[in-house]
């Protein structure tokens, strides 16, 4: 456009361009104001506490604040031999203050996370320290219990000096940072979390696979049958989908127990002897069976909605060009269903990886997942920062899959029912 062209003006003399931009801004603002209430509600009540978990998981100020003098005295200590009298004295002063404020229990819980065995020696120290004499605290504290004379325990205290630490994340993968600052794995018999992560991934993977294998044929049947039959069969998919999760878990508990219907049936047809009834519950098997059935509708529905859009004439064309039914299926039909497979698999995998209720009820010790461990630390050990760290590690994984899902399927394309 040359500069000679006159700008188009509206009736009140403002250039049209400016006027249009103003209207667009107004419309944008209007749209945003409609979304704003929900957006801010979620940001305050939901997103900010999740971000707060990030803070919780690295926050280690409790111990730092509990033993201020000790940590100052420890700065000069190289950690090789037992600390000097100075450190012991500072520790004694800090500890007396804690007893006055009745906070030594919290300290012992925290230190016990770091190294087992702190709880009892702190209790003992509290009792004995009442009759301590002034001076030579090193001798007196070491006399309370042999572990107080063990340099390992003092190193464990020193490790808790920083206000922020990522030790909880390391603990989540069975590692810790030793005195030289190297990352090392914990002893073999105490590696529990890595095993749990692997198991969670394994169970989520197999549940997804089983769901796919079972959902594919029935989604195909539903998509190809005449409407009046498929509507009827669709109920078999939708009724479990709408039924309470606990009801479905309860029904599996009844079916799978040793005196349950499945075992009764197997004994009746003679496959299993009466005194050798299968143990299908409170172990991995129970988790697999129940989770597969519960998550199956989430695989069937996306597959069905994709298959519904595939024209049957494509398969007929393939056959008329000389393809056998199997080749036609493999070369023509199957590739067209891949978007549905992707959507369903990712959905089931995301749901399976964070499952809590069903594994807790039918999983026993060998069938529980990472979520159960998070709940355990939230409720039983009350190690909330560790629970937060584990939760965020799980969340990072789920968000990564979600991102892939969004790229592949698009989040606006989620269909319900």
């Amino acid at each position, binding site marked *: 456009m040359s500069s000679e062209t006159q700008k188009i003006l509206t009736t009140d003399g403002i250039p049209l361009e400016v006027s249009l931009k103003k209207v667009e801004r107004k419309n944008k603002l209007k749209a945003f104001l409609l979304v704003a209430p929900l957006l801010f509600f979620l940001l305050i009540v939901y997103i900010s506490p999740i971000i707060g978990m990030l803070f919780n998981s690295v926050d280690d100020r409790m111990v730092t604040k509990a033993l201020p003098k000790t940590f100052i005295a420890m700065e000069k200590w190289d950690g090789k031999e037992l600390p000097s009298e100075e450190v012991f004295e500072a520790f004694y002063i800090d500890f007396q203050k804690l007893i006055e404020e009745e906070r030594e229990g919290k300290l012992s819980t925290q230190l016990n996370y770091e190294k087992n065995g702190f709880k009892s020696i702190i209790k003992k120290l509290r009792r004995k320290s009442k009759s301590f004499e002034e001076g030579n605290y090193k001798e007196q504290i070491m006399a309370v219990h042999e572990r107080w004379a063990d340099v390992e325990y003092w190193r464990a205290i020193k490790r808790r000096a920083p206000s922020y630490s990522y030790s909880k994340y390391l603990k989540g993968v069975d590692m810790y940072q030793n005195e030289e600052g190297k990352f090392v794995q914990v002893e073999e018999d105490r590696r529990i979390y890595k095993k749990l992560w692997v198991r969670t991934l394994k169970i989520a993977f197999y549940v997804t696979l089983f769901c796919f294998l079972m959902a594919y044929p029935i989604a195909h049947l539903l998509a190809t049958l005449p409407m009046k039959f498929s509507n009827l069969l669709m109920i078999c998919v939708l009724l479990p989908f709408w039924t309470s999760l606990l*009801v479905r878990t309860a029904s599996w508990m009844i079916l799978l127990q040793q005196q349950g219907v499945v075992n009764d049936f197997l004994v009746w047809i003679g496959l299993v002897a009466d005194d050798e009834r299968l143990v299908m519950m409170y172990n991995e098997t129970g988790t697999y069976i129940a989770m597969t*059935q519960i998550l199956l509708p989430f695989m069937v529905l996306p597959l069905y909605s994709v298959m519904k859009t595939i024209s049957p004439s494509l398969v007929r064309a393939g056959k008329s060009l000389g393809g056998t039914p199997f080749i036609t299926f493999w070369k023509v039909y199957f590739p067209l269903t891949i978007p549905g497979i992707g959507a369903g698999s990712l959905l089931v995998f995301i749901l399976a990886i*964070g499952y809590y209720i069903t594994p807790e009820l039918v999983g026993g010790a060998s069938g529980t997942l990472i979520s159960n461990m998070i709940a355990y630390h939230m409720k039983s050990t009350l190690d909330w920062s560790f629970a937060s760290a584990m939760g965020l590690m799980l969340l990072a994984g789920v968000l990564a899959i979600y991102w892939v899902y969004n790229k592949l399927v698009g989040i606006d394309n989620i269909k319900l029912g």
Partner: protein
Amino acid sequence: MALPKYTEPHYRIWHYVYLFICGCVFFFLIAPLFVIFPLSFNAEEFLVITDGMKRLDPDAFSLRWYKDMVYGTKNPWGLAAKNSFFIAIFATIGAVILGTVAALGLSSRYMPYKGIIMATLISPMIVPLIISGVAIFFFMAKAGLAATHTGIVLAHIILGTPFVVITVTATLSGFDHSVTRAAASLGSNPVNTFMKITLPLILPGVISGALFAFVTSFDEVVIVLFLAGLDNTTIPVQMWTGLREQLSPTILSVATCLILLSTLVLVAAELLRRRSERIRGINR
């Protein structure tokens, strides 16, 4: 899908195998639900099908567990049902209002940062429940709302809104915006246009979103376990406790009632889906 006459024998066999596999999968999906019915009428205290039940002996069946559910001494189900309905109804109302309004904004073609905002609004559906539970618990504890109905209702609004946003946005995708412009040109104000024109047209989407939100809240147990005190116990929490401690047939009576309820919801959702498809079909 009948096979054409010229089908070769081995494909014919394969076809029947395929139908058989499908039958097994349908059985696997639906049969577990039906185990609950006979056992909830059990006269005995065990959760097994007794010999009497196999012989269809009338004495082996009874309504005692249903009576126990309603009239039992110190029974928790009455309070739990009251709480469940209270929480679910208020959570649904909250989720529907927030979700519908947000969906209206999201469907506008002027909406800035649509992708990231949509992802944020949907996130409660994607984030594992246990993590939502931990996060919401931290918030409610700080806000002094732990162990209150308000806290649980707020938490369930969070979980319910993604469903409303998704269903209403889907309904709005086939929505003809010229009708609202027509209303505006005839002198209607925006609120009036929404109530008289937009809302009736998107109502099927709103109601099906409401159904999802209601069922989500009614069935939710993880977050309630974190938040609830003794006074806020709900049906799922009672079932959870029951299933963990002692599996009594009363639970199965409750489960039967819940299955009947979900059948009602299913029928309602199906009717709505068809109606919504019809309305959108006309608009196209």
